Structures are given as C-alpha cells and as structure tokens.
C-alpha cells in the first residue's frame, strides 16, 4: 500500500509505483497503455465537446492518495446500507478496499448464486482465474477516448468479477456495496467490475455507492464492463448516494450480442460532482437495451449524464428515459448520443429526457446528438424542461393537501415513471424513500411504490 507523504494531484497519483502482486503482472501492459492514454488525452477542457458543461477544476486541484488503511467500520453500519427486503448477496468495499470481514462468505455466494457461477473479487479472478477473465477485462475500455477511462485502465485495482455460465439464471442479485468514510486525505479509487453473462444467462447486479459522512472528500472512478452474449439478460443498477463533497465518475460499458437484453437503471442522489456514462454497443442483431435514469440534485450538486448508444447491428432497439429533478443551484447535464452504424438497418431508437426545475437557480443542459449512417432507421428523441405544473398543484390543494405536500407528491409522481421500470421492488421502494427524503419539505409524505 502506498501512502502519499506529499501533496499529490490525481495525475501524479497514478504514476506512483505500487506494489502490484506478481500474480497480477500479466495486466501490466494494459495498465501501462492506460497510463500512456491518460498522458496523451490530458484533462478535458471546455473545447472537449463531451465535457463542455462540466468543470473539473475542483477535482484537478484536489490532493489525492491512492489508498488508505482499512477503516474501522462496524458490521452494524454496513448493515444500515442494506437494501431492505432485498434477498441479495453483498460484497463490501470500504474506501475502495475489499472487506472480506464485512462481505457475504464464499459459501453463501455459492449457495445463493449456484456453484457454477463465478462471483469473486476482481483481484482474485486476476490471480486465480486468469483464463476466465483475460478474454474480457479491459476489452471494452482498451481504446479509451475519455481520460477517466484511461485513468481506470492505468489503475485497475479491485472490484467484482461475475461470470454466469450458459443458460443459467441467477435469481439473487449481486450487491456491490462501496462505502466511503472520512479519511485524513482524499482517496482516489478505481473500482472495476466485469460481468459476463454467457448465452442465455440471466443476472442482476447492483452497484451501490454510499458514505458515512457528507464531508468525506474522495473520488470513485468506477468502470463496469458488461458482456451479454446471445439471448443473455443483464440488469444493472447504479445507485449513487456518495458524500455531497465527493466526486464520482461511473462508466457502464456494455456489449450486447444477438438478442441480448441489457437494462441499465441509474439513480443519482449524492455527490458534489457526478459524471454518469452509459455506453452500450448493440453488436448483435435484435439486441435490446433499456437505459433508465433519474438524477436528483440540490445545493450545488453537479450531475452530468452522458449516454453513448452505439447501434452496430441491424434490428436492434434502444430505449433511453432520463429524468432530472433539480433544486437550489444544482445543475444537470444530459447528453444523449446515438450512433447508428451503416449496417444497423431497422434500428429503433427512442430517447427522452425530461427535467423538472424546482428553483430559479437550478439549471439543466440537455442535448441529443444523433449520428445516423444507416437509411432505414426509426429514431425519436425529445427533451423538456419545466417547473411543477401550477394547475396540478391547485388541483391537489383544492382537495385539502398543503402546498408543500402537493408539490412533493407531484415531484414524486414525475419520478415515479422511472421507478416503475425497475424490476426490483425493494430497490424501487428504497429509492422512492430516499428521493422523498431529499425533496424540500416533504417530510411525512409516505408513498407506496
């Protein structure tokens, strides 16, 4: 483990030498290439179209260390971050470090997931199941055009590897719980998850980012690579409730083979600066991708969502539904890029981004970016930004609800559509409760979803 003794900006931290165990050394060329890409790409400025609305100055100015000692955290605290009523298996990371003592034991994993399913920490897979993970790790991020992806490649540390064999349906969701605590110095971590669903396999994975302190400053630069082989079904949830002083960059890369079905559900609630990248490639015919998201900002949170949906095969569908609710001085960004390759005839792509602004100072930048190279394509997109409809508030008040409750119910109603698309009812319920807790003056409002 390396503890920085002098101030280190992020660029310097990745160049610090680490004690990488010998069994991981086969990944070093990949790490080195990531480092080169990072140096080549450099930090994006405003001229970089992809980062036009997101300023990284605060992140660049922060001194980070690459790791800290294991935090003292009780099983009770960890239990508080469980998703009520959800029967899952949980792998716990604290400040980026895997915590065997707090995670479900391997025999429970085997019991719940099935013995033919691989589910372990990434470093274990790298060291002990090289033949299993080598065909996948880094394959979707090998040629990064984004500096954070390059940084992740350079800094592969730990995470989770899941492999579900052909035809197997895993009923129990895998919950990857990342807890950040307050540390002496801000820590930068680069979790990487690799999810492989072989032909016809089904699996659900939750990436869950939480903190024990809203004062904790840190960076989570997470990359998840999803490989959905033919007919496979992968449901991925990103539940982001970082410290409101923290940075989170989450990138979901997905590769969909023929008739694969990938659902990405994202809810951004926390973080000071969040960048959420969803980057699926529909590579086999008749693949389907659902991209469902909600970002809820207050204070001076900055929540940037960048979609890049690549239709690379014919007869595929993609559905993007993103909603933003922004209060105070918070800012939302939505970029919906859809690329339809020349071969991707009969593509059916839908994109919708709707925003509700709760204050005069809240802002949103929404932009579709369509690049269509095929000629037989159905592609619809729309974005709207508005306030809570006063006619609806009046209707609710005319039935006796106070203005605060009426508004809270209507804001909730706006978000409810997105919750409705989530397959896991306990997740819906938790998110609904957490969203309501974040709404102004909505205390006491109870809503069943």
């Amino acid at each position, binding site marked *: 483990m390396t503890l920085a003794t002098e101030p280190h900006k992020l660029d310097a931290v990745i160049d610090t030498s680490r004690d990488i165990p010998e069994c991981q050394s086969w990944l070093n060329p990949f790490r080195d290439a990531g480092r080169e890409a990072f140096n080549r790409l450099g930090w994006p400025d405003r001229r970089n179209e992809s980062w036009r609305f997101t300023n990284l100055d605060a992140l660049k100015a922060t001194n980070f260390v690459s790791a800290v000692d294991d935090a003292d955290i009780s099983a009770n605290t960890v239990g508080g971050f469980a998703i009520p009523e959800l029967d899952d298996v949980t792998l716990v990371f604290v400040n980026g470090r895997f915590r065997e003592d707090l995670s479900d034991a391997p025999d429970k994993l085997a019991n719940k997931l099935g013995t033919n399913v691989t589910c372990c920490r990434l470093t274990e897979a790298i060291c002990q199941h090289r033949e299993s993970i080598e065909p996948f790790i880094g394959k979707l991020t090998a040629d990064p055009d984004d500096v954070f992806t390059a940084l992740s490649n350079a800094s592969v540390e730990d995470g989770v590897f899941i492999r579900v064999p052909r035809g197997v349906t895993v009923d129990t969701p895998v919950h990857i719980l990342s807890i950040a605590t307050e540390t002496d110095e801000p820590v930068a971590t680069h979790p990487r998850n690799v999810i492989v669903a072989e032909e016809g396999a089904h699996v659900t994975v939750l990436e869950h980012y939480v903190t024990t302190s809203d004062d904790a400053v840190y960076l989570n630069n997470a990359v998840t690579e999803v490989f959905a082989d033919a007919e496979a079904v992968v449901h991925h949830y990103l539940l982001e409730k970082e410290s409101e002083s923290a940075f989170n960059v989450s990138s979901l890369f997905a590769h969909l083979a023929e008739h694969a079905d990938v659902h990405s559900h994202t809810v951004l609630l926390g973080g000071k600066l969040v960048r959420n990248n969803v980057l699926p490639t529909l590579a086999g015919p008749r693949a389907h991708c659902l991209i469902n998201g909600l970002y809820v900002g207050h204070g001076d949170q900055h929540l940037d969502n960048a979609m890049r949906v690549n239709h690379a095969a014919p007869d595929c569908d993609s559905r993007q539904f993103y909603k933003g609710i922004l209060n105070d001085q918070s800012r939302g960004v939505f970029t919906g890029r859809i690329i339809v390759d020349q071969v991707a005839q009969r593509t059916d792509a839908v994109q919708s981004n709707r925003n509700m602004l709760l204050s005069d100072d809240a802002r949103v930048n929404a932009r579709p970016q369509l690049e269509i190279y095929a000629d037989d394509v159905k592609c619809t997109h729309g974005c709207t930004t508005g306030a809570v*409809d006063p*006619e*609806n508030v*009046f*209707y*609710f*008040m*005319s*039935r*006796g*609800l*106070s*203005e605060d*409750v*009426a508004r809270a*119910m*209507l804001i*909730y*109603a*706006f*978000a*409810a*559509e997105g919750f409705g698309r989530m397959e896991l009812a306990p997740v819906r319920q938790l998110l609904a409760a957490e969203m309501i807790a974040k709404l102004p003056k909505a205390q006491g*409002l109870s*809503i*069943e979803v």
Partner: protein
Amino acid sequence: MTTPLLDIKNLHVRLEDDPAVEILHGVDLRIMPGEVHSIMGPNGSGKSTLAQVLAGKEDYEITEGTIAFQGEDITELGPDERANAGLFLAFQYPVEIPGVSAMQFLKAAVNAKRVAEGKDELDAAQLLKHFREKATQINVPYEMLKRNVNEGFSGGEKKRFEIFQMAVLGSVLGILDETDSGLDIDALRIVSEGVNSMRSADHGFLLITHYNRLLEYIVPDHVHILVKGKIVKSGGKEVAHELEQTGYAPFGVHEPVGA
C-alpha cells in the same frame, strides 16, 4: 337565524396577470344549508372563474366584495384551507396526474382534512373501509382507486371520480362546474343519484351547467343566469325552463342554450 353556507357579496374579480381584464362585475349569491342552486350562462360569462375563485385559485384577484363560507370570510384562505373547511370544487376539466394513485391521493387528502379538524388520522384499514362505502354510495367502481389520478379516465369517469372525491371528503358545499357535460344519459343518472344521495339539511350545492337536463335529475331550489360577469336573473327552477325556450336573447346574447 341560520348562517348561510355561502354568502357572496358584490364580487368583482380581475385577472392577476392582466388587471385590465375584469371578469366578474359584482356577483351576489347566497346559499343556505340544504339548498341547491344552479348557475347557467353562455360560454365565457364567468361561471368557471366564479367557481375557481371560490376554491381559491391564485390567478384571480378580488378587487371588491366578500366571500363568506359558513359565516367566515375566506378570501384570505388558501385552497387547502377552504377544502378542509368543507368546500369542494368538482372541476370542469380535472387534470391527469400520472405517478400518483387515486388511492394514495385520497388517503392523503382525507387525513389532511382530519388533521385540520383536530381529529386522529385514519389508518389504512379504516380508510379502505371508508372508500368502499363511498364507492358504493356514489356508484363508482372501487378499482378506479387503484389507477393513477384521472390518468386515462374517460370524460365520464373523471366526472364520477370528482363526485366520489366529494363524498369521501364529506364536504358540505359542492360546486360542480359542468359535471354533466360530456356524460351519456346513464352516466348522468349515476352522477345525479350520487349527488342526490349527499343532499341533506346541512349540505349545499352550486351546479354550473348549460343544460336543463341535469336539473331534471337534481332539482334546484334556485336558478341564476350569469351573463358577462353579472347575475342578470334569479328565480326558481322555472327560470331554467324559460331559458330553454328563449335562449339568452332576452339578455342580449345571441347564442343557443346548451352551446
């Protein structure tokens, strides 16, 4: 002496955003407990404006006159306070709210009123029992409660749901803004029976309508004709019959009744 349920005196109303536009030019109307009144009038005469002002809509400004509800001046009260005091507006165009079930909405509304009255909130089981009773009384399918508020409701369903809400809330004054418009004859009968089932010595109704048809089902005690923001004629139910013969021509408006 009994206190009027509603007592409107010399009500002048203009648009908040456009003060040059006065819509109501001195309306007087008194409804005693137990009475049913009807307001008829051509399109644009100010009927919905009156209804919305009574319910507390902020788009309008009262420049003169008073509104007393059960003896209390309510002009400074918010829409929620008026509702919790027992005033109910059945909207001409109820809004659709995807994302909130009718059940959740009404549970919150019933308990808001109980809290305002200083009573304990009802628990889930008590609420459901109450809803079932009222659904039977008003003759609406209980399943309606499981749907989102007005979402995808037909015109008739929306109107029936409005009356159901009034019954659930137990409001003492119902202002029904064209609740009969767009109803087929069966739905009209069901809605009317619902309203009649709520009539009592202490309930009052103000029926805004274009059609005498409704008044054959819910027989009013008084009928008023509102033209260009003023009540130009008041009388018994015969006024509605006459209006059907003459139209608004005697009041200087050339438009068929029921337009």
